[in-house]
């Protein structure tokens, strides 16, 4: 062979590639999905169009002042933004928090506990105070669920991937137990779910079903951008991830930061759960754990842990989910198409990442050296 392809390390990661790779990954994933859809006997063009219109609406709907599709996408983006931000700050110090799903559920559980049981205990208490209490409770519920793996990791070096993951299942089973069992609404005609929360504990709505939780997400992104990208503490957290030894020499307490950061991480996921129960369902029921916590991991990673990019990626992936539901309703295609596309985007991006730090070079190999140089 006169030519061979050689990987050459770039001196600096390519900025162009940092933007080009995610876009190209998205396009390639759509192409891959098109092949899959065509094989399944569906018209890819019509399917994607139905997904797009399902997620953002049609121009006719906009002209008529109907933004239902768009607000639905933002509704789904809300937990992704909050949980994605949560996951991202743990990832900054390479703490692999795979437990956002469980932390989200525990946040919803804590907020639900407040909404259901606190008002009867405090009669005559001003009703507007319960919503802020629920916000705090939701964050604490998620933070507590993050605290367990954080302490195990920080002080006993227990692998956090496994612990956070196992805690997901425990949290989901726990909340299921509650709304199927002791917390089940006696007036619910056997429907698994708690009683409706009192109306003053509902998050105010902005438009359609879009609620204040979306604003929480924007505020959280701004705070994280301010604190983690522009303070010494934010730098220390990144240092723990990149070079723990250097962090230790610099006098950074690794154990304390793991616990602190993971609690904030879990707290944000918990807030996502709180926003979901207090903004949408107004009760604990099936549908709280639908995989937002896992999608949040993709969000954080695709956004390269940048808080503003997390908002953008969340909306994009939420659009995929809403669009996926839409093609199930309209075209009878599996909603899991959205998951397949998400996985494919990740694969292409993972593969494409090599171009940011390496460049491909065609090398003309000298015949006499070609066999010995590769050594294979």
């Amino acid at each position: 062979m006169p030519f061979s392809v050689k990987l050459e390390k770039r001196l600096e990661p390519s900025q162009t590639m940092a933007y080009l790779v995610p876009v190209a990954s998205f396009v390639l994933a759509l192409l891959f999905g098109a092949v899959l859809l065509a094989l399944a006997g569906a018209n890819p063009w019509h399917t994607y169009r139905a997904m797009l219109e399902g997620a953002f609406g049609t121009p006719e709907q906009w002209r008529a002042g109907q933004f239902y599709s768009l607000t639905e996408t933002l509704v789904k983006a809300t937990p992704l933004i909050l949980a994605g931000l949560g996951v991202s700050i743990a990832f900054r110090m390479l703490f692999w928090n795979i437990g956002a799903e469980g932390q989200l559920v525990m946040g919803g559980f804590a907020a639900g506990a407040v909404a259901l049981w606190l008002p009867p205990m405090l009669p005559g208490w001003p009703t507007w105070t319960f919503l802020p209490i629920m916000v705090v409770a939701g964050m604490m519920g998620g933070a507590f669920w993050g605290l367990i793996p954080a302490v195990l990791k920080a002080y006993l070096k227990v692998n956090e991937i496994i612990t956070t993951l196992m805690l997901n299942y425990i949290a989901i089973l726990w909340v299921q137990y509650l709304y199927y069992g002791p917390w089940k609404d006696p007036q619910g005609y056997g429907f698994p779910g708690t009683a409706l929360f009192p109306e003053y504990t509902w998050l105010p709505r902005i438009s359609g079903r879009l609620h204040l939780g979306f604003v929480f997400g924007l505020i959280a992104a701004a705070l994280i951008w301010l604190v983690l990208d522009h303070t010494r503490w934010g730098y220390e957290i990144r240092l723990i991830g990149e070079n723990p030894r250097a962090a230790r020499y610099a006098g950074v307490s690794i154990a304390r930061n793991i616990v602190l950061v993971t609690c904030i991480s879990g707290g944000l996921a918990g807030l996502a759960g709180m926003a979901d129960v207090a903004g949408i369902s107004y009760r604990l029921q099936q549908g709280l754990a639908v995989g937002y916590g896992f999608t949040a991991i993709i969000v954080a990673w695709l956004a390269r842990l940048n808080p503003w990019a997390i908002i953008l990626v969340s909306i994009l992936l939420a659009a995929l989910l809403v669009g996926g539901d839409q093609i199930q309703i309209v075209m009878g295609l599996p909603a899991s198409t959205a998951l397949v596309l998400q996985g494919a985007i990740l694969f292409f991006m993972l593969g494409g990442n090599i171009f940011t730090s390496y460049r491909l070079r065609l090398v003309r190999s000298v015949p006499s050296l070609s066999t010995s140089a590769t050594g294979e």
Partner: protein
Amino acid sequence: MEIALFASILTITVRAGTSLMYATIGEIITERAGILNLGVEGMMIMGAVTAFAAAFHSDSAWLGVATAMVVGGLLALIHAFLTITLRADQTVSGLALTIFGTGLASFLGQRLGPDGMPLVGQVGPRFHKVALPVLAEIPVIGLALFHQDVLVYVMYLLVPLAWYILYKTRPGLHLRAIGESPHTADAMGVNVIGLRYLYTVLGGMLVGLGGAHLSLAYTPGWTENLTSGRGWIAIALVIFATWDPARAVIGALLFGGVNAIQFRLQAAGATIPAAFLNMLPYALTIIVLVIITWWEAFRKRVGAPAALGIPYMREERA
């Protein structure tokens, strides 16, 4: 009465533990080669759905097994290509594989039935229980261990085989070497990249086989979320077993046993809510993991593959 109860619990334990054993041994082989593949859940569920679909359409359970192994191997090949050749992050790539596999399995499950209909609720070929002569007549444990389906017996053979190859043969030595010290292995003339590919794919094939046991023998048929986290338990079991196929048996028995006792208690109308029993395997995994990690000296002696999760780059030779 108590003996009968013990025997019936052991029967279910072995059945429930079989898919876990396949997946665990597969992941042990992959991790021994230095590659962490968190995509077990995705490969397993894809193995389960494709095994059932292939068996359903061909009316051959064995063809189902073969399909599951090919599919598991192909999915693992994606992981191998991304992490070995393109040097992508192993954690994220494995997670992507799980998300992708879970989504694709659900997609295929709704399309691969007769005439493009869903597979859910279809009845297809399965592996029936076969009693082994003589062995099945051993008192108490005979029926539990030797009146099982064929894939259980294959697993009985696989465990000692995997152990023997890993510890007593030259290829096994190379496998451990590329996960322990790839640079040394390379200097010895071992093809590190090639073998890492081989063992990642082989591991994926075994994980796929574990999925096939679920849909063709343990709970024949296809339902959404059939694996229900078993792939993740297998990853925990690898650590539990400290990367030793023989020790994995103890772990799989333990986890299979929890499943079996759960079955029993539910059948007996137990007063403990099912939710708490369902939590048990997950809580147990955490507890076991804590104990293993705590026992740092022990762990160092038995040794996790030192180069686990670290991409191998020849030019950056240490």
